[in-house]
């Protein structure tokens, strides 16, 4: 006998569960964060030019975030599929939309933390300058872009969870979809850093794109997550 829980409570419970698992296992902190840092250093080796690095720093931060997103999503669903927990949540009558929002929230928290570290790394390693009027743009951009990334990641992660060859299928499905986020977040970040002579005000239309993207895929996920994870 299961009582119907409200969407918000399901989402909060699922998010808390995923974050608690991460706090105890520390897989993302101990493995994904160092991986992302390593990618940032590798970019510096590959580009091998301080001016170029400063110019393209925004794009590199978001590329490193995308690579890490793939791993974080796989980790997020590996936790659930390993002992059939996703199946159990579904059978227990939890609202799939709540599971979707909860998992996306947990991914979002991890990604935002990662992005803060990556931006600090960009300031140190790539010598970018962040003026005070760029901060608001950067924060808005990070939040809206991360929301979009988390929604898309959770959606496609749920689809490929438990499927054969999911390690290779997830990037193939997800990367084309998040291309607008890469374009939008990179341009907005470059405006915030004022790299290449960009003005801070140039970045705001891109934040609009990011917000629309997050809204579209958030809604898409809420509507379709149930039919994607259903057996």
């Amino acid at each position, binding site marked *: 006998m299961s009582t119907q829980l409200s969407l918000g409570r399901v989402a909060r419970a699922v998010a808390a569960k995923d974050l608690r698992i991460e706090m105890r296992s520390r897989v993302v902190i101990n493995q994904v964060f160092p991986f992302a840092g390593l990618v940032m250093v590798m970019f510096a080796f590959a580009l091998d030019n301080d001016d170029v690095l400063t110019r393209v720093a925004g794009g590199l931060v978001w590329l490193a975030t995308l690579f890490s997103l793939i791993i974080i999503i796989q980790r997020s669903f590996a936790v659930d599929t390993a002992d059939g927990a996703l199946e159990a949540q579904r059978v227990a009558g939890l609202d799939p939309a709540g599971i979707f929002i909860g998992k996306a929230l947990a991914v979002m928290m991890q990604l935002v933390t990662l992005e803060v570290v990556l931006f600090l790394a960009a300031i140190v390693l790539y010598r970018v300058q962040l003026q005070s009027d760029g901060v608001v743009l950067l924060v808005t951009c990070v939040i809206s872009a991360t929301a979009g990334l988390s929604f898309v990641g959770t959606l496609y992660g749920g689809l490929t969870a438990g499927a054969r060859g999911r390690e290779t*299928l997830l990037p*193939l499905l997800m990367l084309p979809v998040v291309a*607008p986020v890469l374009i939008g977040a990179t341009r907005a970040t470059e405006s915030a850093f004022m790299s290449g002579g960009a003005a801070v005000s140039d970045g705001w239309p891109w934040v609009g794109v990011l917000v*629309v993207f997050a809204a*579209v895929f958030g809604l*898409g996920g809420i509507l379709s997550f149930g039919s*994607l994870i259903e057996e």
Partner: protein
Amino acid sequence: MNVQTFNARVATPTTRLVGAMAIASMAWVVLGGLFVTPKDVDQGDAVRIMYVHVPTAWVAYLAFIVTAVASACWLLSRKHSMGFDRVAGASAEVGVIFMAMTLLSGSLWGRITWGAFWAWDPRLTTTAFLLVTYIGYLAVRGLGGSLEQRARRSAVIALLAVLEIPLVHFSVLLWRSLHQNASVLSGDGDIKMDGSMLTTLLVGVIGFTCTFAWLVMHRQRVLAMQDAMEMTQLDAALRERANESSRLK
């Protein structure tokens, strides 16, 4: 017990008619495109690529519209008829191949007219993303599971792709417009078409559309038979297991 018949033919009068129309119009495209139509004032003979490239691109986009519509029909129809799912799959398969051909012929044409195989133009970039997206769609179709599961998953993916493509197109459009170098394609609306050129292009579009229809109908039948085979094999396996257990008793 009813008698089972095995008719080896897959064609029907409809597909034969569509096929004949496709062959006739394709012959016109080759003859007209290569020999009858005049050179373009600016592009010279390179304009002959248009008679193949434009219809291929049209079919590629048509294929994905068909996939999206068939997927929506599957999701919305109360019966969840597998026919919709197979049409969606068959159309996506044909579409991926035509989209790859579009990119190939387009890049060869681009090499002649603008001196580069590729340009970061919104139309080109969106087409490339569409190709990758539908390769992913076909991968999702191959994930396995029951027919119902395959149909539901792939229908959702097809509809998500419909959301994704305008977003990609718009963001690339905005991206390019904020950069200085304008689209290299801006000059390509300048082809002055006379009657024979326009007719050949139109016949090409009709011919390629017929080819697409023919391919989807046949491919859809192949998929139906593959699904039927799987079901028969499953039934046979189940019957065997049932016999085994009844023997053991």
